C-alpha cells in the first residue's frame, strides 16, 4: 500500500484546476500506459483508457476526475496585485492568508489581507468580501507582474501532503486525486469485463468532462470513484454528518445529481460484506458527482459512487483516513473481479446499443 499512497501524494502535489488538468493527466499517462490496451485524450481533455477483459463483454466505465477547485486570474492591478475569480465551489472565508501557485510556471503567491491592527471594528467582525481579496506575487507593478503571469492563469493552493496523527493524510485536492489514485491502481490488474478507465476534466464546474466521456464509452455500468464530504467533528449532530472518517468508503444512495442503481449498489454491499471490507452510506443528499451525468448518457447507464470521506474538501487542505483509501481500493477491486453479475441490460433486450 506504500506505493499507492506515494502515488496519491504525488498526485495531490500536482496542480489541475478545472480546465487546466494537463500536468495531472501527463503523470497519470506515465503510470498507466503500460497497463492498458489503448488510451487517448479527447477534445475536452479527458484521458480515456481501455483495458480489454477476458470474456464477458460487459462494458464498465470507471470515472475519477482530475480537476480540483481553485482560482483564475482575471485582472492585474496597477500595483501588481492580481484580481481573481473562484473556479468551483470555494467560499471567500477559506482564502484569506493562503499560499498559492499561479500559472503553469507555478509562480508563488499569497492571498493577502489587511492585518488586524489596520482593520476597522466592522472589518474585524464582518464576513470577508471576495472582491477585496487579491493575490500578491511580489511584483512591484503591473508591468513586472505581466512578465510573470497572464490573465486566465489558473491558481492552485500550495500545500504539501503530510501524513500525521492516527493514520491520517492532509493534502490539497484529495477531491478527487484520491479517486485518480484508486483508478490508477485498478488499471494494473486484469478482469473479465472490459474496463474503460476515464480520468475526467471539469467536474468541479458542472460535471462536464464526464458527459462527453460517457457518450464516447457508452458503458453498461459505471462506477464513480470520489472524495466526498465529511464533517464528523464536534457540534455536528450525528444525523447531519454526511460520512465519518475512518469508517470505510462511502456509498451514495442519492444526492442532488443522482439516485444510484439499486441492483448495483446492493451488489457492492454484498461484495463488501462477503470480504469483510468496512463501508458506510453517505447520509446527506447534498452535492453532485459525475454519476449524475453518466447515468443519463445515451440510453442510460447503471451507476454507483464509491468515495473516501474527506474532511474540509473545497478548502486549501483536506484530511482523510488512510485506511478508507485502502479499503476503497480493496472494495473497488473486489467489485470489478465479481463482475459480471446477472443484471437487466437494455441492449440484451434488443434495445439500441449505439446511436
Amino acid at each position, binding site marked *: 500500500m506504500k506505493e499507492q499512497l506515494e502515488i496519491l501524494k504525488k498526485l495531490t502535489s500536482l496542480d489541475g484546476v478545472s480546465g487546466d488538468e494537463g500536468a495531472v493527466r501527463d503523470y497519470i499517462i506515465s503510470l498507466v500506459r503500460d497497463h492498458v490496451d489503448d488510451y487517448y485524450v479527447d477534445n475536452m481533455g479527458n484521458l480515456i483508457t481501455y483495458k480489454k477483459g477476458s470474456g464477458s463483454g460487459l462494458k464498465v466505465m470507471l470515472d475519477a476526475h482530475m480537476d480540483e477547485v481553485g482560482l483564475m486570474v482575471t485582472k492585474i492591478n496597477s500595483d501588481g496585485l492580481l484580481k481573481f475569480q473562484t473556479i468551483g465551489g470555494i467560499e471567500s472565508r477559506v482564502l484569506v492568508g493562503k499560499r498559492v501557485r499561479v500559472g503553469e510556471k507555478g509562480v508563488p503567491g499569497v492571498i493577502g489581507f489587511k492585518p488586524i491592527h489596520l482593520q476597522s471594528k466592522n472589518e474585524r467582525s464582518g464576513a470577508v468580501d471576495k472582491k477585496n481579496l487579491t493575490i500578491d506575487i511580489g511584483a512591484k507593478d503591473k508591468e513586472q507582474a505581466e512578465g510573470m503571469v497572464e490573465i486566465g492563469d489558473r491558481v492552485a493552493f500550495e500545500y504539501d501532503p503530510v501524513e500525521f496523527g492516527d493514520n491520517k493524510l492532509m493534502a490539497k485536492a484529495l477531491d478527487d486525486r484520491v479517486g485518480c489514485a484508486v483508478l490508477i491502481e485498478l488499471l494494473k490488474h486484469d478482469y473479465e469485463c472490459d474496463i474503460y478507465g476515464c480520468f475526467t476534466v471539469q467536474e468541479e464546474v458542472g460535471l462536464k468532462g464526464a458527459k462527453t466521456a460517457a457518450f464516447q464509452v457508452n458503458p*453498461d455500468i459505471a462506477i464513480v470513484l470520489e472524495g466526498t464530504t465529511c464533517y464528523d467533528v464536534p457540534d455536528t*449532530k*450525528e*444525523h*447531519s454528518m454526511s460520512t465519518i472518517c475512518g469508517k470505510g468508503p462511502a456509498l451514495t*444512495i*442519492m444526492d442532488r445529481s443522482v*439516485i*444510484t*442503481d*439499486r441492483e448495483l*449498489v446492493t451488489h457492492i454491499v454484498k461484495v463488501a460484506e462477503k470480504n469483510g471490507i468496512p463501508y458506510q*452510506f453517505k*447520509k*446527506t*443528499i447534498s452535492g453532485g458527482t459525475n454519476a449524475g451525468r453518466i*447515468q*443519463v*448518457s*445515451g*440510453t*442510460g*447507464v*447503471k451507476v454507483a459512487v464509491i468515495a473516501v470521506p474527506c474532511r474540509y474538501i473545497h478548502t486549501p487542505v483536506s484530511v482523510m483516513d488512510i485506511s478508507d483509501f485502502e479499503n476503497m481500493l480493496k472494495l473497488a477491486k473486489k467489485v470489478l473481479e465479481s463482475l459480471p453479475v446477472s443484471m*437487466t*441490460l*437494455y441492449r440484451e*433486450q*434488443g*434495445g*439500441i446499443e449505439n*446511436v
Partner: protein
Amino acid sequence: MFDIIKKLAQTFGPSGNEKKVAEVITGLIKDKVDDVKTDALGNLICVKKGAGKKIMLAAHMDEIGLIVSHIDEKGFLRFSNVGGVHPWGIVGKRVVFENGTTGIVWYEEDKDDIKNLKFDKMYIDIMAKSAQEAEKVVKVGDMAVFAGDTILQNGRVISKALDDRIGCAVLVQMALNAPETDNEIYYVFTTQEEVGLRGARTAAYGIVPDMALAVDVCMTGDIPNCKPMAVRMGDGPTVKIKDGSVISHPHVKDRLMDAAEKNGIPYQLEVMQHGGTDAGSIHVTAGGIPSGGVSIPSRYVHNVAEAVDMNDVENAVKLLEAFVK
C-alpha cells in the same frame, strides 16, 4: 378505469424504486403490445408496432417520498426529501416503506416557527424502541412514500401519488383499448421524473421518436385565493402550451387541438409557470424531438392527497387516441 387508477396509485414507487409499478403495468398490458423492454434507468418501454410515425407517450412511474439518512440510538429515523416535498406540509403525516413498515413524521418541538422548518429538524417515528429494533426493518437509504387510500367521490378521485399514476393509468387504459393506427406507439413509463426528468431522457434517446407527449398532471386555478391559472378541474384534459421545462412544439400542439375539435373532446390550454414534465428532457434529446403534453388538471399536486376529475381522465384517453390516429 377507477380500479386501474387505484391499483397503480397504491403501488409503492418513489424515484429510483419504480420496479413494483413497472411490474403492475407489465401485468396489465403485456398482451396488448408487441414488445416490452426495461432500460438501465428502469424505464418500462412498451411498443405497439406500426409502419407510420414513431410516437412516444410518456408518463412517469415515480412518486415523491422521503429517504432515510440516519437511524439514531433511540430508533428514530432522520430523512431527506425525494422530489418536491414541503417540510411543513408533512408534519403529522403517515409514511410507509416498501416492506409495509409504517411511520409518523414529526419535528423537534423546540423549533417553534413551523414555516421555517427544515428536514434536518424532523424525523420519522416507526415505533422502534432502539436503533437495533429499527434496523431490523429499515436501513439507511431506504425510501418511504406517503400513505393514503384512493377513493372516488362525486366523480372525482382523491388519492396519494396521482402525480403521475394518473398519467400511467391513462396510458394503460389506452393500450388496453388498442386504438387502430398505422403509427408506431411507444407507451413509455418513465423513472426519476420527480428528481430531474432523468428517465425520460434515456428512454427518448433509445427510441428517437418523431414526436412525443408527456402525460402528467398540471396545477389548477379553481380553488380559493390561489395563484391565477386558466385551468379548471373537470373542464377537460389540457393541451400544454408551456411549463417550466418546455415550450410545446407548435405542430404537436396544433395536432392535439385539431384532434380534440374534430372529435368533440373538451380541452383547455395549459400555461404552467412552474414545474417541469418529461417533455422538458425529451425535446432536447438526440437531434431534438417535437414534444408537447397532455395534462390531467389536478388540485393539491405534491401534497399527501391529490385530486383529479374522472371526466378529465377519460377524455384524456380519448384525446390521446385521436392524436395518434
